[in-house]
């Protein structure tokens, strides 16, 4: 299995930070990343556009037989991914190390 691409968003994923996250996700997909880990450690809020981007990324990696994983997600991120329906479809880990070990 090829190594995973790790993406680290900021604490509040609104506007500019959301644009940055979307760009990083698109770039990873464009570069052929099949396994993406999002390091959610310290993320306190993620807006609807960022969540929509996670859904699109999930669909894109699924189409390539890859995975989307979340690491270190706090209560809000867990609640948000559950609300939009992606929660049960992706793997959630306590830390990035754990997510990477399991994808190695």
């Amino acid at each position, binding site marked *: 299995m090829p190594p995973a691409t790790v993406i680290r968003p900021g604490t509040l994923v609104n506007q500019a930070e959301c644009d940055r996250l979307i760009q990083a996700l698109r770039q990873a997909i464009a570069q052929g990343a099949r396994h993406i880990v999002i390091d959610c450690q310290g993320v306190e809020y993620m807006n609807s556009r960022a969540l929509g981007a996670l859904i699109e990324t999930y669909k894109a990696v*699924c189409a390539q037989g890859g995975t989307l994983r979340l690491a270190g997600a706090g209560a809000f991120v867990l609640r948000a991914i559950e609300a939009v329906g992606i929660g049960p*479809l992706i793997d959630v880990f306590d830390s990035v190390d754990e997510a990477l070990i399991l994808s190695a």
Partner: protein
Amino acid sequence: MNTHSEIARLQQELADRKGELGLVNEKLERLLELKNRFLSLASHDIRTPISTMKLAVEVLENQLQDDPRPGLDRLLSILSRSIARVERRIEEMLMIARLDISGIKLEVGPLDLNSVVKEAIASFFPSAISRDVNLDASFDDIPPMRGDAQRIHQLTSVLIGAVLEGMDPGLRLTVATRAESEGAGIEVRGNGPPLPEERARALMAGLEEENPSDLTRASLYTAHQIARRHGGRLEIKGGEEGPTFFVWLPLEAQQEKEA
């Protein structure tokens, strides 16, 4: 039996009946509140797996584009339409639950305003994503408060729902909590469509109407009642940039009586 004692007996009977009716009414209010809380919880609980099913169907549809399977397309299409139908019903159930204002007394307890507001926002993510509206938020450090967390969740949901309802794709809805003098505020703002000042004033005036004429007014009346019962207030501002709803709440709910 003389007339006086007969009147006294009837008065006592009337008082007894009034007491009984009061008890029955209280019980009905409680049952109505339980029913609406169940409706709200059930709707949320059903919506979550429905969202997952919708997403799973989309992934399968994508995969079938590359690898067509006769008959499977049709089944997925039926599944997709059925999910959309259930989603619409759930939205209606949630809307009804948000209008509930039964249960006169607040259940006051420790209130973590930011957590309650975040929870309300999360429940709107599916609608925001499907409408392509950007749901942003910011949170001040709010001191410990006391209030009815479930009612504040309901109030916040009403305001987000009212703003989101009229928004076009690409617009932005911002929810913010604010540390205010002797209290805290929740601001819900949309950057469109414009809300004329006159319409904003009419909505403000409508907050006092006990039998609002439309769904928006009914839901805002509910929000207003919840704010008032906490000893707070709701303000509606119009403008070219869109509507702004602001709720001020005291740090300690003052349990104002029903209007």
